[in-house]
């Protein structure tokens, strides 16, 4: 049932995802204390249809990077390009960090928001919203308000809302950061199921190494102050994956160690002891 829906919703074309190219990008914020260099010389590339994870300590500028890729912020230097196939306009949706469902809209209203802003008529937008709510396992909650449901359910709705405009690029800013461990595992697996063969390019930001290895095709390790990409790790695990499988995989521990040793240096230098 949900598989059939998925195809209807996302019309899975493996070649449809966006090619993201970030070149020599800096972001400098002006503050009263002077300039703060949030990002320095960031270079990255996400291939069409790739699930790319950026892992890094708090305050390393991951969110800033994502906001710039979404077009919500502009780089101080460098360039950010979203290249869609056949020269069509590349679309993106972001799953934001924290509580960002509109409290004044029902779950259905939240998910239908994007399509409505794009000129889809209300009836069709609500129909699409209901299908997406079913896809993320929230059938029967269409008329609930965001404050009436759990944090895990809210993140499902956020995902459904981002998918509703059928974007070529999905940007996710620590979407599962505030969830308890069990709920996080379930949502990670659901995200992979929904992403499936949709062909969408995903840029996923997290501070959890395990989450990065669970989800990504590739993992970029970011360091803080100023943020830049310190290391790139290819994830060898096949798909579909489950957390138990990848944890049991002999490649898991060395990869975890590789990423952690890079991060640890950074956290000790800049974050945890400042």
């Amino acid at each position: 049932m949900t598989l059939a829906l998925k195809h209807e919703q996302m019309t899975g074309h493996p070649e449809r995802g966006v090619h993201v190219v970030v070149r020599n990008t800096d972001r400098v914020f002006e503050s009263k204390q002077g300039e703060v260099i949030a990002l320095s010389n960031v270079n990255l590339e996400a291939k069409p249809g790739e699930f790319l994870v950026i892992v890094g300590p708090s305050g390393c500028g991951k969110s800033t990077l994502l906001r710039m890729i979404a077009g919500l912020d502009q780089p101080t230097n460098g360039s950010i390009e979203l290249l869609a196939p056949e020269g069509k306009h590349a679309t993106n949706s972001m799953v934001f960090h924290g509580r960002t469902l509109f409290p004044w809209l029902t779950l259905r209203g939240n998910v239908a928001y994007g399509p409505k802003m794009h000129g889809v008529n209300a009836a069709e937008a609500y129909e699409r919203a209901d299908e997406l709510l079913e896809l993320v396992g929230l059938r029967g909650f269409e008329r609930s308000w965001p404050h009436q449901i759990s944090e895990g359910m809210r993140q499902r709705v956020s995902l459904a809302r981002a998918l509703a405009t059928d974007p070529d690029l999905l940007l996710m800013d620590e979407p599962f950061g505030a969830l308890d461990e069990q709920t996080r595992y379930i949502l990670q697996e659901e995200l992979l199921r929904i992403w499936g063969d949709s062909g969408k390019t995903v840029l996923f930001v997290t501070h959890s190494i395990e989450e990065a290895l669970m989800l990504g095709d590739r993992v970029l390790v970011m360091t803080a102050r100023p943020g830049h990409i310190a290391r790139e790790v290819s994830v060898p695990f096949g798909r579909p994956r489950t957390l138990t499988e990848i944890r049991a995989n002999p490649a898991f521990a060395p990869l975890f160690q590789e990423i952690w040793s890079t991060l640890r240096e950074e956290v000790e230098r800049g974050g945890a002891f400042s």
Partner: protein
Amino acid sequence: MNRRSTELFLTIAGPALLLLVWEVLSRLEVISPFYWPAPSKLWGTAVEMFRDRGLWSDITASLWRIFAGFVIGTVPGVLLGLAMGLWWPVRIFFMPLASAIYAIPKIAILPLVIIAFGIGELSKIMIVAISIFFMIALSTMSGVLAIDDQFHDVATNLGANRWQMIVTVALPGSLPAIFTGMRLALGFALIVIVGTEFLAAKEGIGFVIWQNYQILRIKEMFVGLIITGLMGWAMNLALDVVERYAIPWRSQ
């Protein structure tokens, strides 16, 4: 007694005690029964005023002035408040004006309002509208400013243009603050309309109070006072109902 029945008891006890003390003191003529008629004697007066002296049309006259003034003041007040919240030049331009006019006792501008709008109904409606206008605007503005910036990002990311942002984020996001302003404004509207009717009206609940005071019909004056209190209470209840419909995400 559990908490709920204690609450109910205490709620009723305050007014009941006041009425009882008043009744006893008046009957024992500790206070003058002419100037402080016992509450039990007011009932008959009230019935008679409703039946023979058109008290009902005084009530509806006042309610209509408040309602019309409320609508005329609230709608542009919300629009100005949205603009002040959304664009800083508008905010800075109107802020000194709003703060200064906000501080003037509104009844003081009654002569000006009469000069501008005549001595008819319009001036009574307009003084209510003018009194609440900046109050609503300032509440709306603070509501807009309190909206989390993230919602702006979310709406932009999902394709909202400027106009859609105002209608789908700024307006619903500031509705709770708008209603806080309206609740405040309702009290002000009642004060202003009673004052206005003291001075410049031929009907209305304020007129009933003042008229009867001047010819020393003290019982009738008290009935007018009590009706005024009940009107305030009823208008608040009505606003509660409207609020439940306007802000359904808050009321559950």
